[in-house]
């Protein structure tokens, strides 16, 4: 394949990414993000008033945790409904009829959703920087961006795989919640309060451990504690970046495996 073919393909991917991101603006997604920022501000003021001590820490931690979950939810909903719209109005078939490999279509969509994730993260990060040290807020924001990129890949995979929007959203949410809580589940499974003499408990613990190997350690992403106590160095982002790269590639390969086998 010569250089001009690569350039053409890259151009096509960029166009798909651009139009995917434009869809977010045309469907007033940006208004939802603005509403989220306003809600975040409200939560921050409300929780700040309620706390009897550690006001700043309580306000920042709860606001950050709620905004993070809301952002993840928004991205899952946006990606899933957007892919289903593509399937419903046959624009996928139109794209695949062009001289572009299926991987190109997939990468274009993922690129577009990554842009949407960046647009979602920026105002939330700005809001958190207002309530916490700027450098800690920035690192939290970058980590949130990586988390959302991972969620984009996850939602894209399930949106391709499932016929029903409900199934795709439920699967994405379940996967995300499991990724976030697998560390805690592992701690409980190995804890001294579980009876490891029981065969059923041994099997459960082995299952939990195996599952942990296959899931991304999302509980290390965008931690509220960074915003309150001495913030993390930029080095904290390196393992998060590596985990994102590995897992997004893995999810993309699974999605592509599925996409290449589809009959349209």
């Amino acid at each position, binding site marked *: 394949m010569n250089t001009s073919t690569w350039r053409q393909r890259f151009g096509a991917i960029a166009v798909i990414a651009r139009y995917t991101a434009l869809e977010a603006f045309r469907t007033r997604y940006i208004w939802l993000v603005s509403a989220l920022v306003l809600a975040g501000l409200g939560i921050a003021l409300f929780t700040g008033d309620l706390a009897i001590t550690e006001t700043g820490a309580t306000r920042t*931690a709860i606001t950050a945790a709620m905004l993070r979950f809301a952002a993840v939810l928004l991205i899952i909903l946006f990606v899933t409904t957007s892919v289903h719209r593509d399937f419903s109005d046959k624009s996928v078939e139109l794209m695949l009829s062009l001289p572009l490999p299926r991987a190109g279509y997939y990468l274009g969509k993922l690129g577009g959703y990554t842009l949407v994730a960046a647009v979602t993260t920026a105002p939330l990060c700005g809001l958190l920087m207002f309530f916490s040290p700027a450098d800690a807020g920035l690192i939290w924001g970058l980590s949130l961006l990586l988390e959302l990129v991972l969620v984009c890949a996850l939602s894209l995979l399930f949106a391709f795989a499932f016929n029903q929007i409900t199934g795709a959203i439920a699967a994405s949410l379940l996967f995300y919640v499991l990724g976030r809580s697998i560390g805690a589940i592992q701690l409980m499974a190995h804890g001294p309060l579980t009876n490891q003499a029981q065969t059923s408990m041994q099997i459960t613990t082995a299952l939990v451990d195996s599952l942990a190997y296959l899931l*991304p350690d999302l509980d290390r992403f965008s931690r509220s504690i960074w915003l309150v106590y001495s913030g993390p160095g930029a080095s904290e982002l390196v393992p998060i970046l590596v985990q994102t790269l590995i897992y997004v590639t893995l999810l993309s390969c699974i999605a592509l*495996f599925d996409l*290449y086998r589809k009959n*349209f």
Partner: protein
Amino acid sequence: MIASACHGGSRERPVTQVPGAVILVLFLTLVLQVVWHHSRPAPTAAASALPLAPPTELLRVAGLGDDFALSKFLNLWLQMYDNQPGISIPFLELDYARVKSWLQASLTLDPRGHYPLLAAVRLYSEVPDPERQQQMLEFTYKKFQEAPNDRWPWMAHAVLVAHHRLKNLELALKYANALADRAIAPQVPHWAQQMSIFVLEDMGETEAARILIGGLLESGRITDPQEFRFLSERLNLLAESGYER
């Protein structure tokens, strides 16, 4: 792969349609993920990071109106901090004022729940630190007074912990007296109400114990013949030891 749920077409294309590079990278990243997970430090419960429980109003908002479920969730969440090998070490690292705030929050959300009191008197009071043990026992004592007829089992545990672990007989007597005075519903067993007798005996206060048993026997509250006989024998024994003295 995720075969049956695909969009559109009736049959899937063969696996040979998938580019070899995709399959290769898939397996490579799968191996990488496993290796990466293996190389990362195991999750640890950070005892020092236990925060103060948020206000109950805020917790209620977070629980989306299901206070009961939230209370159970809080119990498990708090437990996560201790759920690591070497139980006494993390307990010693915990800020007990904060532990108490979480136990309190859980009880406020589910006042009929027993989990927080069991945790206080049987988990957190196991720590080899008398001050922390006493903090947990006092928490149990305070909460017992809010619903003595429901929470008496935990007060009975508190008597035993104060007696045998703390070796603080005065504290044990205070709790045993509270049990006798406040836990008076029919479902409360007599052995719980009689704990003060045995504490008094161990304190060498045989006269006081004798008066207590005598009063109990005369009150007519003891209806079980075996129990009546046991207490009578106990009373005689105490009387004899009194004469010997």
